[in-house]
């Protein structure tokens, strides 16, 4: 187990390094320049000398490998520096925005599980019924319709028919629980709808497979109540593959937050990423991407580790 964990940690570390290199290179070869942003855009007054001076001040005229190594060194020593555009330190900003994204991610997973698993079980128990077809279409919709589109439609419908639009100022859960819930409900529901689809469909297929197993038939033959057979014997065994997907959802929700936070005016890490990307704010974008990728790597690692706990048959050392 320990050897497996170490190997996974090492691979996760390599993945994060690879991501950081890709992001670092992409940001520098893509069209656009933070120096132009700082100097005021393409219609500003400035000379090549001015541009070069600022580049020097920002350390952007150093060789790229040097810049990269400096960045990585700073990242691992938690000295994340400051934004080139705002001159604000990055870490305090992340600290401020992380709870927003975590709350959105948590609610998204909650929606995904809360809907996905019951719907999946329901579809399996009602296989090929009208209800099954209806729920399958609904979950297929979740897979097919991107959350930014459903988010936009929710705002349009809310505006046109209910005089509703997203709240513009963030309110903390501790200051106003209901206000906070209202802010997060729809973005979490949009992301959750997308995420629940995979859970529901996976749950349906694994549940159907388990329900056809001999031990289920034996349980029925023993005279166990239907609910006990379904919930204690079938569902428990059918859940294991779904747990894997839930773990992946936890990892990916942070990515889904980028669009939802922008559309629904949530000041989290996702909208911070968009804000920084549009300004070519290299240190912020690099740090955020590395942060996101570390999040995904660590979550995946934890999922793998949890297999052994969930299913005693799983052995890592062999």
């Amino acid at each position, binding site marked *: 187990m320990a050897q497996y964990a170490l190997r996974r940690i090492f691979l996760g570390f390599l993945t994060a390094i690879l991501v950081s290199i890709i992001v670092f290179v992409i940001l520098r070869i*893509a*069209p*656009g*320049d933070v*120096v*132009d*942003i*700082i*100097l*005021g*855009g*393409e*219609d*500003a*007054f*400035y000379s090549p000398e*001015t*541009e070069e*001076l*600022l580049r020097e001040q920002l350390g952007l005229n150093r060789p790229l490998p040097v810049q990269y190594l400096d960045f990585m060194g700073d990242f691992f020593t938690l000295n994340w520096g400051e934004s080139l*555009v*705002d*001159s*604000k330190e990055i870490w305090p900003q992340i600290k401020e925005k992380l709870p927003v994204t975590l709350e959105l991610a948590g609610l998204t997973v909650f929606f995904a599980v*809360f*809907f996905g698993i*019951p719907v999946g*079980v*329901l579809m399996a*128990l009602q296989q090929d019924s009208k209800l099954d077809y209806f729920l399958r279409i609904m979950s297929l919709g979740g897979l097919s319709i991107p959350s930014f589109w459903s988010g936009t439609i929710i705002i349009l419908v*809310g*505006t046109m028919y*209910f*005089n*509703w*639009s*997203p*709240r*513009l*100022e*963030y309110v903390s859960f501790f200051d106003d629980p*209901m*206000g906070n*819930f*209202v802010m997060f*409900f729809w973005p979490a529901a949009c992301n959750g709808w997308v995420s629940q689809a995979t859970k529901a469909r996976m749950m349906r297929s694994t549940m159907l497979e388990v329900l056809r197993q001999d031990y289920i038939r034996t349980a029925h033959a023993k005279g166990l109540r*239907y*609910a006990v057979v*379904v919930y204690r014997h079938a569902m428990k065994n059918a859940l294991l593959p779904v747990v894997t997907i839930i773990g992946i959802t936890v990892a990916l929700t942070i990515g889904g937050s980028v669009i939802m936070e*922008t*559309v629904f*005016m949530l000041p989290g890490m996702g*909208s*911070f990423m*968009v*804000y920084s*990307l*549009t*300004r*070519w704010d290299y240190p912020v974008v690099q740090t955020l991407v590395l942060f996101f990728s570390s999040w995904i790597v660590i979550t995946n690692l934890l999922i793998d580790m949890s297999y052994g706990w969930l299913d005693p048959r799983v052995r890592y050392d062999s």
Partner: protein
Amino acid sequence: MSVRFAYPLRPLVAILAVTMTFVALACGGEEEAAAPAATSAPVATSAPAPATTAPLPQATEAPAAADTSDAAAEPAATAAPAAAATEAPVAAVVADYRDDWINFLKQHKGYKAEWGEPTYGGIIKTADPRPASRFQSTLGYSAFSRWQFAAHNSLLFMDPWGTIRDAPVCDLCESYEISADGLKYTFKLRENVQFHSEGWAKDQGAPGFGTELACEDIKASIEWFANPPPETRASYIKFGNTIMGHLDEATCPDGMSGKTVVLNFSKYRNATIYWLAAGFAVWDKEYREWMDAEYPGVQSTANPEGYMINMGTGPQIPLSADSQTVMKVRKNPNYFIPGAPFADGFDTFAIQDYNTKFAALVTGKIHQAGHGSSGITKAQVKQVQDSYADIIELQIVRYNHISGVRMNNLIPPFDKWEVRWAVQIALDRMDWDDFMTVGDVKMSNPAYYLHIDSGWGKPASEFMKTKGWNPETKDADIAEANALLDGVFGAGVRPKTDQYVIQLLSRREISVWAIDFFKKYLNWEFDVKYVDTYGNIATDCLYTIRAEANPNPNKQVYASDPSDAFWGVHSEWTTSEKCLHTGWKGDGEASADELAKVNGWVEDLDTNLDQAKRLELARKIEAYLVEERSTAAILGVMNVAWPNRWELKGNRYYNLGTYSQQRLHDRLWLNEG
């Protein structure tokens, strides 16, 4: 469903029922949040000053604002510059009467009877399409600075309810005189103008709070403006040097605490008076010194401190700033105009998503959604016309941006003049006009570089006879363009090159239309590259062709005078990208002689006192840029749709809307009636 199946489903049904309850709560709970702020706004918090009927200032006698008819633009085209310039060098006194603010406004030509009686109170909420990227309130004019100027006043300003052709009027001055040679400006300052008595820096021991405006403050501010300290962002230093570098000295003949300011300039420049009225912020001398010492260069970035540190004489005081979400200002209780401002404050939200912004406007979470080149989309204009005309006032404003397609004369195939000229004559401006028409609203107007409302541009009737613009010869123009392209590339051959587009709405529309047009009429397709910002693609001349809507090389952002408009054309004065000022009627770069010829015209335009000569020069330069240089195929003046809720009163824009001049903070109010 059998009971056998129904029983085990009960937990699932219960889960779904609980979820539905959450949905109901989410919708129900929103009711309160969705209520427009204006409902509680118009509560009188202070009474206006006693009524004394006062004569209107000079600005109110000027033509009414927002006259969008072409007929209005044409006859005045030659008259306006002549009037402005003959007035400027000769001694002039501009009086201003604001003892009774409400009556003053009600007698103003820009006042609309349907606005009703001004009322006090409420927070006016507005939206920006993106977070601010800088907080330079003295030099960094941009769409963002509009809301920063709430904290400041200038010596002069452009009356926001007037027109762009009006002469600047006094803001912090009582009157001003300009010597006959145009080198000496004498200002008499207002009495009893106080700097903010409260503010973010007060707790830090910053000086100057609550002090009275004096000559030394103007002197310090204008000297800072002309020559910013080295910690200031270099581009701002360059800008300050460029537009105020001809200031010899600022003196205080009545002493530093006196009320007379004299500005002596080394040369006469036509645009000086407009630059002084462009929003140049006046700071307390000691405060400015403290700020430069404690927070050097703080306004060069979008750091919130750069916003909070604004301390002036203006109608609003910064309250909080988060450039990513919302910036707030609150009413200055000691504002020098009795009875002003009406609003208790302004909240400016950064709403990047156009849909979310529009939804916020419709549902009353914001009162105004106009900002820079990004108002609302054409589709949203249509929605307002069809569904929301009763709650949203649509203001279609001729903006200071000129739409067009930029071609880089340094990179093939646009290094050949024939190719650029082919594009210039081929583009069907009538088709563009149709594309930019929504219902009865036109989002574009014919123009070259000189804005039709500035009074300097070519009248629309003349435009329609020009090659490339004349609808009657359009087919022949397109045929000629194809023949030119065949001559360069070979019959029917069109090279595949890159076309750049940035995501800003104002550029996207040009691009969408142009991509289709090129393919349809010139059989020419491009590899389209979408980017967040042109950035160094523009400044380093890396593009081949791109959609553009900013006014470069004309700089009407800052002044309505054409010397400002053509600043970027001068190859030595300008620091804009090389590909913008090295084109000519030939291949590659223009020769030094060719550039010197144009530079001479621009210098003459800048300083010449003969306005008829200036008009001739301005049109000569404009024609040269289009017909010979041809690095941009112009489509016309861009109209922006800046909507506001009907309850927001006093909000109007003159055509050729600019960034900083449109200072409305002391005359907007909320009135649901």
